[in-house]
């Protein structure tokens, strides 16, 4: 790998000198530089950062000529912005080429060598991806071949090692996946061969993945080859769609499942119906012991092989993001229903410009299992009993949300929302004793367009939070208070209690976006922490260039993308971000 990198660099510099006309291929890419300054702020719990200024930077360069393409990504973490894994920057900062590939594609075959991202089905046995917001990049480094020589059937084979920061993990990953699109496949046997009515589509798929990792443990008999497979189907007829996937993994004792030898299982079913003005989506997910990694001893988001789809709504309003749900790969069962309805324009509720309503409900439980997640020593003989697809007693998360969007006139729009949530903090954030949090949040947003290019947007949100003590059986109890009325149980963190939030944003399209917002933790148990977190941003956009300058006091918390989460520490300082594509 070390010798490969300089060779690629030379290759690119040669190409960039010669790539003046189309015959020589095309170079494209993008870059992003984020800089953050840190001011010590003991009130909000911001750490003292000795460097005072930190930066992450990325540059993607891609070269394409005919059927051939190649690319690199240069990354620097000098040092990593707080909240990213300290393994990115290491002790003294890190920079280098974290991703490089060469690829050849024609109608029949698609071969990639070097780094690649791949997903089998919904990703429950394999999904490698980059999520920069989370500092997650689990790309494979090796060979991938996709064959589409038979119409309607695509076969993907992968062989590789997985990226872990600036190195690769110890495991070797091998996999094969097939996907069959029935309608297209039948065309191999004649143009008029069909078994499904017009407009119906049926797709089947299945994949197998195995990872090898040497057993060096003198105390346990560990499986060196851990295999997982999935089967899946997607059915579509008119506005109706059904997507189902089942995955299975053999015994895979490791850090994150406390060396349990149980097999892993996962089922995901998603049904949806859409018609003009109406969208309904219902999903079910059940998981047991499905944390799958190319190294047994990796933790957090490092060297994760699979992705377990989230069945909870992903919010964007600030206060709704304070307690986001993180998927529990060791065991959970959840359901979600989502309804979107638009009242027709001109109707009583629709008014002149239309009204839409979105209702979402999600609930996640433990699975019915003899395993006590709070007591890692309770796993007797490294096995436990479990009833897959049966709801356990513990509620991890419950979330009801309704949002109404209405356009009142050509220039004025509002969006009102209400959310009621139950969040089992001690389990989701692995912080024993912190109990559960019940919240009610009201959100409101007002958008007024003054002219065709100038817009003012206001947001006001309120969160009422109640902290509950949870007993060993998962029962919800009243908080315990001492003689002075101070809560002693559950344990409270810096951000406890109720919040109010306000934002004002002024846009001069398409170039300027100016916003100021404040979060006020007025209900904090500790009067000294009833703090204002004031932030401001100025964004300038010109063609592909985007420049953001901000200043703010940022509360600590959790950031999640699709149920995959990382902690974000509190900070105070300036931020600067520049990005562009070319």
């Amino acid at each position, binding site marked *: 790998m070390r010798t490969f990198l300089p060779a690629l660099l030379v290759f690119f510099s040669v190409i960039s000198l010669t790539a003046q006309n189309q015959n020589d291929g095309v170079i494209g890419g993008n870059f992003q530089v984020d800089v953050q300054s840190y001011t010590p702020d003991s009130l909000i719990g911001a750490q003292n950062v000795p460097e005072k200024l930190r930066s992450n930077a990325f540059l993607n360069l891609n070269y394409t000529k005919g059927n051939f393409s190649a690319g690199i990504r240069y990354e620097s973490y000098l040092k990593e912005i707080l909240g990213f894994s*300290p393994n990115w920057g290491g*002790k003294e900062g890190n920079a280098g080429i974290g991703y490089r590939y060469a690829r050849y594609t024609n109608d029949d075959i698609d071969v990639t060598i070097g780094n690649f991202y791949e997903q089998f089905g919904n990703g429950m046995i394999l999904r490698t991806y980059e999520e920069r917001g989370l500092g997650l990049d689990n790309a494979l480094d090796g060979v991938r071949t996709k064959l589409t020589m038979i119409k309607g059937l695509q076969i993907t084979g992968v062989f590789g090692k997985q990226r872990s920061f600036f190195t690769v993990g110890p495991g070797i990953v*091998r996999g094969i996946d097939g996907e069959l699109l029935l309608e297209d496949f039948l065309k191999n046997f004649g143009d008029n061969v069909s078994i499904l009515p017009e407009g119906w589509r049926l797709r089947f798929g299945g994949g197998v993945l195995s990872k090898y990792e040497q057993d060096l443990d003198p105390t346990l008999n560990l499986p060196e080859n851990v*295999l997982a497979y999935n089967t899946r189907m997607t059915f579509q007829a008119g506005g109706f769609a059904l997507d189902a996937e089942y995955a299975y993994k053999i015994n895979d004792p490791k850090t994150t499942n406390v060396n349990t030898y149980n097999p892993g299982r996962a089922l995901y079913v998603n049904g949806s119906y859409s018609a003009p003005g109406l969208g309904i989506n219902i999903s079910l997910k059940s998981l047991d012991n499905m944390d799958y990694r190319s190294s047994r001893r990796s933790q957090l988001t490092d060297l994760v092989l699979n992705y377990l789809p989230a069945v909870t709504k992903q919010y964007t309003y600030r206060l709704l993001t304070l307690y986001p749900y993180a998927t529990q790969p060791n065991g959970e069962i959840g359901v979600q229903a989502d309804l979107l309805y638009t009242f027709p324009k001109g109707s009583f509720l629709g008014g002149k410009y239309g009204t839409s309503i979105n209702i979402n409900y999600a609930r996640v439980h433990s699975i019915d299992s003899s395993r006590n997640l709070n007591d890692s020593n309770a796993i007797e003989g490294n096995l436990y009993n479990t009833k897959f697809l049966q709801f356990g007693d513990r509620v991890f998360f419950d979330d009801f949300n309704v949002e109404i969007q209405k356009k009142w006139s050509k220039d004025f729009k509002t969006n009102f929302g209400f959310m009621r949530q139950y969040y089992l903090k001690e389990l989701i954030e692995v912080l024993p004793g912190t109990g559960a949090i019940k919240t009610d949040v009201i959100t409101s947003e007002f958008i007024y367009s003054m002219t065709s290019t100038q817009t003012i947007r206001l947001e006001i949100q309120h969160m009422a939070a109640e902290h509950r003590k949870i007993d060993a059986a998962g029962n919800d109890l009243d908080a315990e208070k001492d003689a002075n009325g101070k809560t002693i149980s559950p344990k409270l963190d810096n951000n406890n209690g109720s919040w109010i939030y306000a934002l004002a944003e002024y846009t001069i399209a398409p170039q300027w976006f100016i916003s100021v917002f404040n979060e006020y933790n007025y209900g904090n148990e500790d009067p000294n922490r009833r703090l204002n977190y004031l932030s401001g941003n100025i964004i300038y956009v010109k063609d592909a260039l985007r420049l953001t300058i901000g200043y703010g006091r940022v509360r600590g918390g959790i950031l999640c993308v699709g149920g995959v989460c990382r902690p974000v520490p509190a900070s105070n300082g300036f931020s600067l971000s520049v990005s562009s594509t070319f």
Partner: protein
Amino acid sequence: MNSSKISLLLCVMFALILSSCDEIAPPYKQTGGVVVVKGTQKVLIEDFTGFRCGNCPAAAQIATDLYDAYKGKVIVLGIHSGATFASPRGKLYATDFRTTVGEELFATFLGLTGAQPNGMINRSGNNGKIIAPDGWAAQVAAELEKEAKASIDLTPKYDSLTQILTVDVQVKWLSAGGPDDHLAVYLSEDSVIYAQKDYRRPSKGLSEDDSNYVHMHMLRGAIGEFGTWGEQVASKAAGTSITKRYTLSFAGKPWRPKYCSVVGILHNKQEGSVIQVNDAKVK
């Protein structure tokens, strides 16, 4: 290639991957016996711990299991460190077991994100030097596979009259030493009986505070004047050796010579990695 050949190829590949699957039948735990390791490389487990850290005894048990499994090859240091778990609190946790050396190691290697229990295995590893306890076994095994680049001989002498410990340390380089080689010598003490939080106890109906916990391999400090990182012993040729003498006074200290060991660590200070380690009983 026609489609029947392709199908055949795919079937073969599918079968190959399916066969790469190891289902393990009980018993899952390996029992008995000492793992015999051929080379002379030894391994240092530095366990960052604290008496108010309830998950730390389980980690100490892992270190002990490895110490037993690789008899004579593994050296353990229990480093009571950090403000969160090792600072004194109340009557039960009144004694401060933290040391200047331990705090310096903690600050250097665990830094801002100092969660405990956590440890280092010869201060090496693929993803940073800090390794969670259940990763120790694999890293210890990997380190033991390495070919030793040096050997360390320790000859401690304790004079009970003057209460002075003298240690003669001989380092012999088996392959050429680097410009940044340092020799650090520490004192550790076994069987210190003192309180420890232990989250394994409530499930047995006991209080989580164990007032008679036996602390093993407790780091007590550096021997000699060179502190945490030790003395520079730069660029020695293969086959050469040096001998150094270090002293430490036990006067006024609670340390019991009978339970104490000296630990010699040859390390690359810049990289922070341990080259070789050895120990010897004081008495």
